[in-house]
Every structure is written in C-alpha cells, then in structure tokens.
C-alpha cells in the first residue's frame, strides 16, 4: 500500500472519515457547524451530500449534553464522531468524557461498549491567545478507559482515524491545527492503522528523540538537518498516549543511552514526565546522561506576537537541547543551526510552516 499522491493531513483525516462513514452506515457525525460551508476546517466537507445529511447532526452550543448524547447513541449501536473546533470546548464535557465515556465498559462489566470518536483540535498562532490554543492531552491521558491519540503525519492520520472509528472504545483524537497543513503521501484506498505504540520515523544511534503531534514535525527537521553532518537519531512519533506502549522507546534507549522528549503541551506534569520516568525505571543502567524534556513554559499562552516569541518549542531549541546530549563540534552545530534557520527564514512566528511537506 504505497502511494505517490500527496495530500495534507487535514485532507487525509477527511478522506479517512469519509471512507469509514461510507463503509459503515452506523457512523454519524456531530459538530457545531457539522454541515456548514467551512465544515470543521474542511475536514467534513461535502459529507452531507455523500452520506446523507441526516447522518450529520448539528450540535447546539451545548458541549456537555451533546457529548452525553453521543455517548448515548454509542451505547445504542451507532459510531458517533464528534468534532470540536477547539480542544478547550471539551472542558465543558469533561464529566461525560471521564466518567461515562471512559468508564462505561468497565463499570458495566463489559456489557456496554462506547465506540465514540472525539476529535479535539489544538489551536496555535495568529494571536489565538490563552483560551484557544491549549494542549490538554496530558489531562485526557490520565483517564483509563479512554484511548488518546495524536496523529502527526498524513498517512498515519488517515489510517488511525479509520481505526478510531472502528474501535469499540472511546478514542480522543487530538489534532494539532498546524499538523493539518503538513503534506505527505497518502494511499487513496481505505486502510486502517492500529492504535498502538509509537512509530519510529527516523533511524539512528546518537540519541532517542520522542515527540508528540506538531513537535514531531519540528523534530523531523532537526533529525534531517543532523544527517547532513553524519549524525543519525532514533526519532519516534509517540502517536498513542493511551494506552501507552513504550517498548520500542525502551529498545532504542538501550541502544543510544540518551533520551530527549518534546511535548506539544506544558513541560510540567506533561507527557514527557511519564515517558522519562518510565524509561529511567527500565533503562537506568543504559542511560549515559540524564534524559531531557522539552515543553511549554509554565504560563498561559499570550496573544501578542511580541509575547510568544520564545514560547513555543521549535527546531532550534530542540537542536540546542539535543546538542547537550550529543555534543557536536562547534562548526557542525553552527552549520546545522544555520540550515534550520534558513528553512524557516522570515516566516512569522504565528503562522504555520510550509516546510512540512512529505514524504516523511
């Protein structure tokens, strides 16, 4: 199953959802503006005409109840997909998500299944500010019974969203808005990618690099820039935050002895904390240096382009941290850094990077 057709991750999500919806008539869609001209950043574009408008359930602005309604239809044999334009809106539905969706199968002793997909989109840039650009995956990942995935690459995104629709568990799909723009090869046919484990997307021995979501793209840039000076790294796209399978990362760290994690969300109490502490537990004797975690600093996201200048993790910061582990000679380091600088050049800090074009 290969393809040389290139589409964006946003389009890949749409194609996966559409194919899944066409194959299984029990799939129904919920969103605020589910069938409107913009159709959730285009990801549901044209669905009504293709699968029937009656399967496109317009949500009143009632996130809590409508999440409950989606759980209720899931209890009744449907496969609801509910799309939130911002992950923040799901805060209002946390009780339904963390109690009813996450625990129904457990509490009912296996009698109930909740085949629910919740798409939660993370905003960034263009002054979105403190309440439209949070990364809340660390919060959702805490609840047993949920599956939590963050697809980063187009091919994965299509296959995993199809798998999410077919999964008999509630699956939260956290999509970073800037990943939507990443372009890569995506097979045209229907296929499913299992919701398991991290995916190794670069192979090397200098260091183990683990990233989530959009940070995977920033890491890719670093990995590829490093290869120009003959340094190769094991780069993992974590993809599945829950259930968490760290085995491939364990294997890698046993080889490299060095670990850097890069979160989309806050560094403190973030995903990286779980990875680092688990890896240390298992690989203590293999580690050559202390693992490093990167993530957002400990304050809300300001709106002003002036204030976010140093807020997000980018390839340069990743390179700098990585260098404390791999200690390049000065000229290699500067060369790689310059490469990376040149790639982004003068693109403003608050708009997505057109660099991210696959094949990855």
């Amino acid at each position, binding site marked *: 199953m290969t393809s040389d057709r290139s589409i964006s991750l946003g389009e890949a999500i749409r194609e996966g959802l559409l194919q899944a919806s066409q194959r299984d008539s029990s799939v129904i869609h919920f969103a605020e503006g589910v069938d409107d001209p913009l159709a959730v950043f285009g990801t549901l574009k044209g669905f009504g005409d293709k699968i029937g408008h009656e399967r496109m359930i317009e949500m009143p602005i009632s996130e809590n109840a409508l999440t*409950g309604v989606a759980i209720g239809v899931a209890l009744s044999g449907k496969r609801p997909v509910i799309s939130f334009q911002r992950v923040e809106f799901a805060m209002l539905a946390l009780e339904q998500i963390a109690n009813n969706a996450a625990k129904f199968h457990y509490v009912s002793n296996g009698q109930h299944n909740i085949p629910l997909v919740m798409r939660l989109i993370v905003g960034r840039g263009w002054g979105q500010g403190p309440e439209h650009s949070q990364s809340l995956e660390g919060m959702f990942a805490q609840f047993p019974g949920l599956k939590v995935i963050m697809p980063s690459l187009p091919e994965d995104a299509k296959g995993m969203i199809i798998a999410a629709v077919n999964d008999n568990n509630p699956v939260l799909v956290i999509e970073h808005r800037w990943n939507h723009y990443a372009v890569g090869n995506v097979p045209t046919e229907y296929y499913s990618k299992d919701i398991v484990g991290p995916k190794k997307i670069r192979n090397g021995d200098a260091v183990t690099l683990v990233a989530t979501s959009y940070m995977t793209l920033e890491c890719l840039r670093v990995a590829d820039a490093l290869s120009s000076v003959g340094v190769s790294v094991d780069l993992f796209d974590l993809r599945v935050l829950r259930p968490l399978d760290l085995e491939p990362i364990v294997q890698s760290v046993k080889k490299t002895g060095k670990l850097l994690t890069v979160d989309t969300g806050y560094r403190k109490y973030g995903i990286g904390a779980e990875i680092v502490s688990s890896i240390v537990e298992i690989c203590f004797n293999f580690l050559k240096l202390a693992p490093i975690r990167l993530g957002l600093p400990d304050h809300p996201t300001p709106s002003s382009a002036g204030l976010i200048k140093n807020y997000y993790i980018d390839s340069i910061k990743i390179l700098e941290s990585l260098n404390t582990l791999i200690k390049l000679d000065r000229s290699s380091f500067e060369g790689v850094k310059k490469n990376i600088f040149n790639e982004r050049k003068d693109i403003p800090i608050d708009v997505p990077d057109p660099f991210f074009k696959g094949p990855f």
Partner: protein
Amino acid sequence: MAIIMKLEYEKSIELYACMQRIRLVEEAISTRYVEQEMRCPVHLSIGQEAAAAGVCLALETRDKVFSTHRSHAHYLSKGGDLRKMLAEIYGKATGCIGGRGGSMHIMDLDVNMVASIPIVGSCIPLAVGSALADSLDGRDNVSIAYLGDASVEEGVFHESANFAKLRDLPVLFVCENNLYSVYTQLHERQPDRPITALAEAHGIPTYHCDGNNVEEVYRSTLNALKNARSNKGPSFLLLDTYRWLEHCGPNFDNDIGYRTEAEFRIWKNRDPVILYKKNLLKKGILTEEDTVELKCEIQKEITAAFDFAKNSPYPDHSTAINNVYA
C-alpha cells in the same frame, strides 16, 4: 390531555404488587444494612414507589430506562432481577455488573435498564442519545430519563431538553420531586416558579401529577409515550413525592433538623402503597387476604434473594483490571 380509561384488573394488581415489592425490598435493605455486609452507599426509595411503578409499568421491555443514584425502585419496576440487584449491592460476582458499581450504578441490559449514574444530571443526555439512535433508525422505542428535583439545576438538563425538542426525540423526562436535595429544601435552591415551566420553556409538553397516586402517574406516562411513539417528541413528567428515609443510608433522619416531623407525617399519610391498597380494596379488586398472601410471596422472594446475594462469591480481585478496554 388525560385519556379517560379504566385500568384493567390485572394492571391494577400489577401496579400494586410492584409498589409493595419495592417497599418490602427497600425495608429489608434498611433492616439488614446494620450487618455491614452491604458495603456501599444506598439511596432508598421508600415513599417514592408510585413514581417508579407508575412509569415503568407503562413501558414496553424494549423501552430504555436511564436512572440516577436512587435507582432500586426503577430497576425493580422495569422487571429487574432482585437477586442480581442485591448481589450487586453486596459487591458480589453475581451482581448485575459483577460488583463493579454497587447500588449507585445498577444496570442490566436484559431488561433495558441501560444505566444508573450517580453524578446528578449525568444520565439525562444519555437517554436523549438513546432516543436519537432510535429516531434515526425509525424504531418506536422510548427512552426514559429519571431525574430528581435537583437535576433541573444542572445545565445539562437544559442542554438536553433543548436538543430533544429540537429534534422531537422520543424521550420522557421523569422528574421525581421529593422536595429535597440531600438536606436542602427546594426553595433554597430554586426560585418560586413551577418546575414544569422549565420544560415548557423548551417547548416540551409537561404533565404534573400527584406522584404518590400510581394510577395518575401510569396514565400520564401512557399519554406521554403515545406522543413519543408517534414522533411528536419529548414530554416531561413532574411527580410530587417524598422520600421517607435519610438521603443516603438506611435510617430515618427527621431528628437532625432539616425537615419537620409534621411535614414527614403529612407525606407518610399519603403513603402511595397504602393509598392504592385502600383504593383496590374498596373497588373489590383486592381482598385483605390477597394482600397478605402477596406480601408473603414477596417476602419469600426477598429472603431467597438475600440468601443468594450473601452466598454468592466475591469477584476475584485479579479480575479488577479486566474490561478497561473493549
């Protein structure tokens, strides 16, 4: 609104028997709770039997019930298995969900008791979702959301009502107004306006019944169900009733001072079971001997069910990790 209708002989007896069974079961739980073998919180329904029996006996088995922390009476009325309920309260493997939830989570798909959820209001949108699924697929099932008077204070009630009416879904909101949320009176939590006004504001037709008059509840439910089954959308039933025992636990608690003995006595005099019994005796549908015999039979069932629950094994703790994921 009310359809004029003479209840069939059998239905009357069924309603009575159902209430009597709930009463005796809840009394037995109350009595035996001191043994400390039922190791979970219990919210008993003594005094509220008519709201359970009157609604659930109007339902078909295919209709689906969603309940709250106070669910025993709903489950029994929906045709639930007393043994599975008691075993659940005892935390046993033979419980309706194998001891995982206890009294606050009674559910049993065999009788379409789909869920009981102890978070106030949390079951309401589930019932609406169930109704949406039926509506999309053209089944004429009705979904019932039981709620207490406090539930209408939760935003999720309004969000659910708005959506249910928007799509005219076959759902019946049944509000048991027992005047209290834990130890707090209604007028300390809600302004002075009828609770029915809340549903009407969303365009939903309402019925306001004496919740201790089982026939009135039954008839209103039939009306609401007819509406729902003919795609005319949701209804809201307000049932005035009263809980006799403490909010949570097996005891009377009038002594602690949140309600008056006088108020309690007024409601005790409107005992739904006795009222209906008198009614049926007067009509000659039942004799005193019938009622004694019925009680006897129920007591036998109860004794056997407690034996079953007590003698059932605990689930093995190694199974506690199972069924996190499907």
